[in-house]
């Protein structure tokens, strides 16, 4: 197990390196520079000063090596657009906000999603199934910017206790967490329903039932445990997607999270910030996937992760 984790860790570093390289090539293949603004053009001589200040006048290869060296030290450098914060500071400030929002949403989704799916499967083609389906379909049917806008228009402006956007207290997080949770909740419930149905039809469940074990025990012991696997397999990516923030929800609700930087950094050509958020995202994702694989192994012993198993 320790050996496996160590190996995955080494592979993770290779992955990060590959991500850095691909991102570097991609971001420098897009025309533009970090200093252009929409309203005002910059004369060539001032542009030269700016390029020099941020080391962009150096050859690309040299810049690439600089990035690698700095990232090895976990120093993502100065943001080229924001003079008041380094990339590290931006991430350190934005991540807790996005992470809190993301984890709250995942929790909502994890508590209600599989439960809804299990109920739907147990009452296949009966009323509870349809109710669960309608709930999950609403979840996957409405684009998040529509849902967010409607929540603000019809909930936040009507209920005095719920603020219209902004960030700070728990009540600020309610609507955005809900808006973010709806999609994974629906996905979880559908995956759960489908794998539960599959498992309920399998022989060992029938065997267990015929042995006289109570329905509840069979469901808990066998069905749920196995049906949860597909959910766990997408949990890693879902968690990392939500934890680093959702551009749309954060923008609509005015939340100072990390999500916005995935798009604004590209529009701004803020090279250091692009690199910073990309590497950070990759780190979160790789860790989440590793955790998921370990969880997978713990829950389903049939899956081999180590050679020793054979």
């Amino acid at each position, binding site marked *: 197990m320790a050996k496996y984790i160590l190996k995955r860790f080494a592979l993770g570093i290779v*992955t990060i390196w590959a991500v850095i390289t691909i991102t570097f090539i991609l971001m420098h293949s*897009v025309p533009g520079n970090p200093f252009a603004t929409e309203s005002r053009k910059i004369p060539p001589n001032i542009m030269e000063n700016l390029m020099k200040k941020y080391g962009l006048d150096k050859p690309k290869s040299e810049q690439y090596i600089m990035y690698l060296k700095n990232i090895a030290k976990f120093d993502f450098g100065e943001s080229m657009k924001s003079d008041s914060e380094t990339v590290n500071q931006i991430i350190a400030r934005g991540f807790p906000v996005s992470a809190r929002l993301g984890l709250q949403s995942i929790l909502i989704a994890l508590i209600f999603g599989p439960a809804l799916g299990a109920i739907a499967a147990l009452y296949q083609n009966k009323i509870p199934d349809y109710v669960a389906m309608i709930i999950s*379909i609403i979840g996957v049917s409405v684009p998040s*910017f529509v849902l967010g806008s409607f929540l603000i228009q019809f909930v936040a402006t009507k209920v005095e206790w719920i603020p219209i956007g902004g960030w700070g207290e728990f009540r600020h997080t309610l609507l955005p967490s809900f808006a973010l949770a709806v999609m994974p909740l629906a996905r979880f419930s559908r995956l759960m329903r489908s794998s539960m*149905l599959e498992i309920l039809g399998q022989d060992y469940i029938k065997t267990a039932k015929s042995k006289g074990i109570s329905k509840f025990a069979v469901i808990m012991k066998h069905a749920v445990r196995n049906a949860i*696997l*597909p959910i766990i397999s997408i949990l890693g990516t879902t968690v990392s997607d939500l934890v680093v923030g959702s*551009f*749309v929800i954060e923008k609509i609700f005015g939340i100072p999270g990390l999500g916005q930087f995935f798009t604004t950094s590209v529009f701004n050509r803020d090279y250091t910030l692009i690199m910073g958020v990309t590497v950070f995202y990759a780190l979160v994702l*790789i860790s989440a996937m590793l955790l998921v694989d370990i969880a997978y192994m713990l829950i389903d012993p049939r899956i081999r992760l180590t050679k020793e198993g054979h």
Partner: protein
Amino acid sequence: MSDMTYTKDMFQKVKRESYHADEIKRPTIKYWADVWRRLKMNKLAMTGLFILIIMGIMSIIGPHLSGFDYKEQDYSQVNIRPNSTYWFGTDELGRDLFSRAWLGTRYSLLIGIAAALIDFGIGVIYGGIAGISSRKVDAIMMRIAEVIYSIPYMLVVVLISVVFSTAGSGTSMFVLIFAMTITGWVPMANLVRGQVLQLREFEYSMASESLGASKGWILRKHIIPNSFGPILVNVTLTIPRAIFSEATLSFMGLGLQLPKPSLGTLANDGLAVMPIGLFYQILIPSILISLIMFSFNVLGDGLRDALDPRLRK
């Protein structure tokens, strides 16, 4: 108890041609007829199929029904609520929303289906091969997928659409689909691989393997049919996800290029008049999106039940 020694040449590998015990005897045509029969019994799935067919037809003929061209602007008929002349009302530029909505349905469906099919194709092939290959190949393949997936999705989409918009004419449909599928296939591949890893441990796969069946054969005959349920559910959710991605890109101004509307760009246009209480402009495309989602979902579920070999009688 015998002292007879076994040598290698005493054994002979069983050739596949001479050994058909594990083959499916039932003719294929009957299998699909059976699936259809089962699907027909599922009222909800049939409702979904019916809605999809109607929407498909409307996406073809709808833009020509109202008599108004989808791009014709009439500044004297701006922001008209739905009435008998303009069935879905008009937008901020006085364009007929009925024509636009159905044309948007057409492009959204095209984008969604194309992206889902590409994701599905790449994901199944890639994930299947990875799952069934040796551990080393599996590890390398998963590493590559992981690298691709580790680059933030939105970042890739934005970069791709910016890079390619310099070469040609804005964010064309192909750039959009390309940008969406470049990372989109990875979850599907992961799912397939997970299913394969799980299923190949089942007794019937092991049995086939020990009976000399090739890996590809096991993949085709056992693993893919058996993992069809979760994969199909995933595909039915990939279509809405692709339609959503396009909608989200529209929200960022990177949606489908003019003058073609998509449900996403229409919803985004509708957002602009929401503060003045004109909700129909955002509601109509949103309802159409929801109908598409509903239909794909119930149809996917119905298909899943109908296809599942373990539920066949």
